């Protein structure tokens, strides 16, 4: 029985146990003593008593089982394999794992064939949807057989133990149901724990991001020195062919430059357009225009980035190239300008909606003072409103910049592939996000620096955007406090 089935069983048990508990409490209620809690709380109490211990068993089992089984399988490997480097041992373990999975799907005939070490084993398994990287050796089949039977036993045991836990929990819960029991308080405490746990998921996610990216990055830096990564000016991660030495060069500088260059062009578009839109909407526009324009700008933010990428790829890039050709400029279809301008349009709403809020938050008295001195509206905006709103606007711009740096699909589709240290916006450059995608799609050979570098790039990206976000959120918050 798989874990999913067990959990499904618990989902079915829950309402049943709840019904039983409620009925039981209802029966008790007819006695002389009044119930402390309403029957429904007794029901929920009994249901929780029935499923929580079993759920605990299932979760612990699910984490521990693979560790224990893998360890014991490793112990059965012949000495020749144990002498191999860890990476190759892992490869062997991978084959064994796949073989063990296959045991459940093969018929007895096919199993006998596999034990006999027939040639067609690999093909036979592939037909069942199990792909082996290499033909299994006899010792692998043996270990896999043990593993498969261990897994079967473990599954059965898991089902048994969780069933016992569920029954025990149910029984204890049943015994405890009494008029005086404070079922509501217990259930509410459980709910509170559940709420607390839910709010912890956000922390857990951040923790997961940091750990996964950091862990693989450390792995990467054990192969490629940190200094080569941070200060290298050449990006050339050759996928090492067999018999070829050297992992290639992993200098991040060309990628970092490409990222910053495209983001800079994007900001050149987004900041003026976004800011002037915000000013116009908050200071000049009639309420009807505002009611129309604000949602339309938000549509820009709601369009998936893949659509912008497609637009840049099939329409805007060729358009720029052709116009460039017409006036004698050689513009590559996937130039910095293409990706930058389209990305700029994408982040206009990020700049404008936040700036709009911030400009509106500037107190009316300041404007009125300025008008009273005879300033025109634009003079008031330039001399009074803008300086007052500046910190908040800087925060908005920083937030938009962090969006631009982390943006992926537009650059994957519309920016270049080759790492290029250039100052010319008409040439293509590539970015960190593009390289993360290109290093991790396609056939993966984990543990090679070519794929691990994606995590190092991810770490850089995370730190960069996190830094910008923290500064931005801090300035925006400080600004808000100033006028509240």
């Amino acid at each position: 029985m798989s874990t999913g089935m067990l959990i499904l069983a618990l989902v079915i048990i829950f309402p049943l146990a709840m019904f039983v508990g409620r009925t039981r409490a209802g029966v008790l209620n007819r006695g002389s003593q009044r119930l402390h809690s309403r029957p429904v709380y007794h029901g929920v109490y009994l249901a929780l008593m029935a499923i929580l211990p079993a759920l605990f068993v299932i979760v612990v089992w699910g984490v521990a089982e693979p560790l224990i089984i893998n360890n014991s399988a490793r112990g059965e490997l012949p000495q020749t394999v144990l002498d191999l480097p860890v990476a190759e041992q892992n490869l062997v373990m991978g084959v064994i794992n796949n073989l063990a999975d296959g045991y459940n799907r093969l018929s007895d005939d096919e199993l006998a064939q596999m034990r006999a070490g027939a040639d067609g084993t690999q093909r036979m398994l592939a037909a069942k949807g199990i792909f082996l990287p290499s033909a299994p050796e006899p010792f692998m089949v043996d270990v896999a057989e043990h593993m498969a039977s261990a897994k079967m036993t473990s599954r059965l045991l898991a089902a048994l133990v969780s069933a016992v836990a569920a029954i025990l929990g149910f029984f204890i819960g049943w015994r405890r149901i009494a008029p005086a029991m404070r079922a509501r308080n217990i259930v509410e405490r459980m709910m509170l724990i559940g709420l607390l746990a839910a709010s912890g998921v956000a922390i857990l996610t951040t923790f997961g991001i940091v750990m996964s990216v950091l862990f693989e990055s450390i792995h990467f830096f054990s192969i490629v020195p940190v200094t080569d990564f941070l200060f290298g000016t050449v990006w050339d991660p050759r996928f090492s062919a067999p018999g070829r030495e050297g992992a290639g060069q992993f200098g991040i500088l060309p990628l970092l430059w490409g990222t910053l260059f495209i983001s800079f062009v994007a900001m050149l578009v987004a900041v003026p357009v976004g800011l002037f839109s915000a000013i116009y909407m908050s200071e000049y526009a009639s309420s009807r225009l505002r009611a129309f324009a604000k949602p339309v700008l938000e549509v820009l933010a709601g369009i998936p980035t893949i659509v912008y990428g497609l637009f840049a790829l099939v329409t805007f890039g060729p358009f720029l190239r052709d116009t460039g050709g017409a006036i004698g400029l050689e513009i590559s279809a996937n130039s910095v300008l293409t990706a930058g301008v389209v990305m700029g349009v994408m982040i206009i709403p990020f700049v404008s909606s936040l700036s709009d809020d911030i400009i509106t938050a500037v107190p009316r008295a300041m404007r009125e003072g300025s008008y009273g001195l005879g300033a025109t509206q634009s003079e008031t905006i330039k001399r009074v409103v803008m300086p007052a709103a500046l910190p908040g606007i800087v925060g908005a711009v920083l937030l938009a910049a962090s969006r631009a740096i982390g943006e992926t699909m537009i650059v994957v589709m519309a920016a270049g592939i080759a790492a290029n240290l250039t100052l010319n916006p008409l040439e293509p450059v590539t970015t960190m996000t593009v390289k993360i995608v290109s290093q991790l799609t396609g056939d993966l050979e984990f543990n090679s620096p070519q794929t691990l570098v994606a995590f190092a790039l991810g770490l850089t990206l995370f730190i960069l955007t996190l830094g910008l976000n923290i500064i931005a959120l801090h300035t925006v918050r400080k600004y808000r406090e100033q006028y509240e």
Partner: protein
Amino acid sequence: MSDTVIPVHRLTADELSARTRRRYAAERRFRYYGIAALSFAFFFLIVLFASIVSNGWSAFVQSSFAIAVKLDRTVIDPDNTGDPNVIRAADYTKLARQALYERLGVDAESRPERRDANGLLSRGVDTQLREAVLGDPSLIGQTVSFNLLANGDVDALLKGAISRDVPEANRQVNDRQVAWADRMVEEGVLKKRFNTGLFTFGASSQPETAGLLVAIVGSFFMMVVVVLLAVPIGVAAAVYLEEFAPRNRWTDLIEVNINNLAAVPSIVFGLLGLAVFINFFGLPRSASLVGGLVLTLMTLPTIIIAARAAITAVPPSIREGALGVGASKMQAITHHVLPLALPGIMTGTIIGLVQALGETAPLLMIGLVAFVVDVPSTPLDPATALPVQIYMWATSAERGFVERTAGATIVLLGFLFVMNAAAVYLRKRFERRW
């Protein structure tokens, strides 16, 4: 000590009015900048939609031949076994071609003529006939009318993507094929019909048999996972933070965390999914369950923030009223605050779903870029997602895929539009002013 005399320069009336004019001109210019900025954004939006629609509308029709095909028993199931395996293995392409030869009057002895005629049909016709026969074996032996898919090149010819002015040698369809196609069009046999295939096929290397079904089902599974996980967790977290959390460091940490998570680049969530769900927990690559989990983590901050806003908007008097008549705090929240906050929570949820449905980058990391022909039946089967399908089609070279890419984009935008409209409707319908 002499007083410094500030020279007073009195402006003449002319100078004054000149200055005023200048200032007013500056005022008007400033206004125009704002209008220009807004117009730029609107213009770009219009161009964007126009470009997608003009590229993509033709993907919703597909050329096909309305031809009666004789489902010959001697070809499909000569021994009359009725065995599905025999029926499945039959040569349906032959049947389709035979029918077309008859309709066109092709000389069956002439090889080049036959080859050209074969070139008019899509390679997907055998699947078309096979599905029909497998679905209803009683059709064997009858003559049934089908809309046989035309080849992608013929489709391009009809849609004007292949020009007739190009010399024959450089054209994908030769003169004889053009003549045949024209005749069939005249006779009303070859026609552009609504492209049901776009919604019923999976991946294919031929544009005319490539469809979005796998992607739509995959995206649907992901949305289900997101709704099942992100909504309960998000609402629970919001309730805790708004109603129970004491003001302390831990709460501050959670809050800063949520705000920052909302701004973490989506691709980093993909890395998380790859490292944790696939490498650590060993979940299958290319499965929509993993995609759903990653998207759940991504949309969680959006939902938490929206739910908190909705909960704060419920006035304290409601809570106090409930507590006053003897409800516990948990009862006040579950019986009164949450139902009142529900419309706001649902609006926020839909906005989160919209965000999740359009997201591509993290899905590329966890292997949802696969060539999947079979429709996934569980969230653990290999699948793709709508935006990922757009990406895959956009990066393939054939002309037929360009139109399909834009067509798929229209479908995606259509879904997003419907969801947004639902959110707006909810907000308008249930908005309550206290």
